[in-house]
């Protein structure tokens, strides 16, 4: 007879929109051990590269995940463009930044809602998602899609944003930004929220780094690491600084994302305003060969797209290392010793994207 409660947390669990499983071993409600089990959404899509030509693989790449969709397609395209030495037109570079940052705002607002849900603050969830719909309106107006943009392709982007659409988008975003201040204020200051997040899921900067954590999980522990600093796309030409917090707890992670909202608003504004005129794609011919690693900053952190071409229309190897995959060891490290109530909060604090993780 066991002496501890074992809770099968998932794969179906309302607090997790996506299936993962944790064996939670509890004493009272203290988590003594938390061992993850993944694979519930493992499709094996990397192997599709053998069946689909490199140009078609963009569609697969942007369906690695419906939330991080755009940046996956951008990273894939950038990797193939790197292999094929394709020069992407500047306007396309700026558009990629604008859409990448829109997808970040969309993802962060979505996450803030789910995070609120993880500690039972339902109305905060609703308001976060209410605001997110505003952003989706902008996305829909500029790409035609809501969650899957379908706007990136090898050599550039599929569609342009005209001046009028851009102006309206900026107007909507300005209103949205003001409204966001209200909800991020609650995340920052509300006493019940602080009680559930401050000091919960502590991760030191040293541990975060050595466990390979990325993105807001790493930056909330005081490490300034942001793949956008590499200057890919048009990031090098825009004015921004990585957001860093030092507390290393769930609250700090929420604050990194809350502050990144405003950073993204600024980047979208800069990109749409500074965008030079010109074509939005370069014609691509030939087949990729060689290998290349591309890193971009997803809302959840650094994503790695590795492509290896062998001179055919099919890639020899396509490999994606997603931010959540990198954050899993840090998550396992964080869970032990906290309470059952903290489990959803800590799990959500890395903003897990299982679809990405398992591909």
């Amino acid at each position, binding site marked *: 007879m066991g002496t501890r409660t074992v809770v099968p947390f998932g794969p179906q669990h309302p607090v997790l929109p996506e299936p993962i499983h944790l064996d939670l071993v509890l004493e009272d409600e203290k988590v003594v051990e938390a061992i993850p089990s993944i694979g*519930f959404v493992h*499709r094996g899509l990397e192997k599709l590269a053998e069946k689909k030509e490199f140009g078609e693989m963009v569609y697969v790449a942007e369906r690695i995940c419906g939330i991080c*969709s755009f940046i996956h397609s951008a990273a894939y395209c950038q990797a193939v463009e790197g292999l094929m030495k394709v020069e992407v037109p500047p306007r396309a570079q700026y558009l990629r930044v604008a859409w990448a940052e829109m997808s970040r705002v969309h993802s962060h607002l979505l996450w803030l809602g789910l995070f609120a849900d993880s500690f039972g603050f339902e109305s905060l969830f609703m308001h976060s998602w209410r605001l997110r719909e505003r952003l989706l309106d902008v996305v829909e107006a500029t790409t035609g899609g809501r969650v899957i943009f379908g706007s990136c392709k090898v050599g550039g982007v599929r569609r342009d944003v005209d001046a009028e659409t851009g102006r309206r988008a900026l107007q909507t975003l300005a209103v949205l930004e003001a409204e966001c201040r209200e909800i991020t204020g609650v995340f920052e200051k509300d006493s019940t929220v602080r009680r559930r997040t401050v000091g919960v899921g502590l991760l030191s900067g040293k541990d975060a780094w050595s466990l390979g954590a990325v993105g807001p999980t790493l930056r909330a522990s005081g490490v300034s690491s942001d793949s956008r600093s590499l200057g890919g796309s048009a990031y090098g030409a825009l004015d921004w600084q990585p957001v860093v917090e030092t507390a290393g707890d769930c609250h700090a992670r929420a604050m990194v994302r809350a502050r990144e909202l405003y950073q993204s608003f600024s980047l979208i504004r800069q990109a749409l305003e500074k965008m030079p005129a010109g074509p939005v794609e370069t014609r691509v011919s030939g087949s990729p060969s060689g290998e290349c690693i591309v890193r971009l900053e997803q809302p959840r952190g650094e994503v790695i797209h590795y492509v290896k071409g062998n001179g055919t229309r099919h890639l020899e190897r396509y490999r994606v290392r997603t931010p959540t995959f990198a954050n899993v060891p840090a998550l396992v490290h964080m869970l032990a010793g906290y309470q059952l109530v903290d489990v959803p909060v800590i799990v959500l604090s890395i903003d897990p994207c299982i679809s990405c993780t398992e591909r």
Partner: protein
Amino acid sequence: MGVFSKSPWILHYDASSCNGCDIEVLACLTPLYDVERFGIVNTGNPKHADILLITGAVNEQNLPVVRTLYDQMPSPKAVVAIGACALSGGIFQDCYNVHRGVDSAIPVDVYVPGCAARPEAIIDGVVQALGVLEEKAAAPAGRGEGGKAVAA
């Protein structure tokens, strides 16, 4: 209209979807779409649910999970498959770990196409499922699982 049309409680499960349809399912609950207007509640618990909204193609590992969840829902119940992957495996149908559409694992009543399916389509699918529920409630016990309908 019977009581089942007035109080459809849903369970959402992601069977190896890319998240696209899942977040649209969640979006249905939130202020813009607010399906609670129709009494729809996301229960998160198969034992409380009437309608299973399932996204994504079933894969090797979640096949037993999908079956368990379906079995744990008390009758009468309906299944709505949402999105291209849930219908046929979609873009992933050639993947080695994917078992094609959801109807390869459990009976599906309503199919909602789209990649990702839009919230309006999902709501329409649930509305069609209400009719299915009422039919099943009227049918003698033990019969009436399965059946097909396609949402616009």
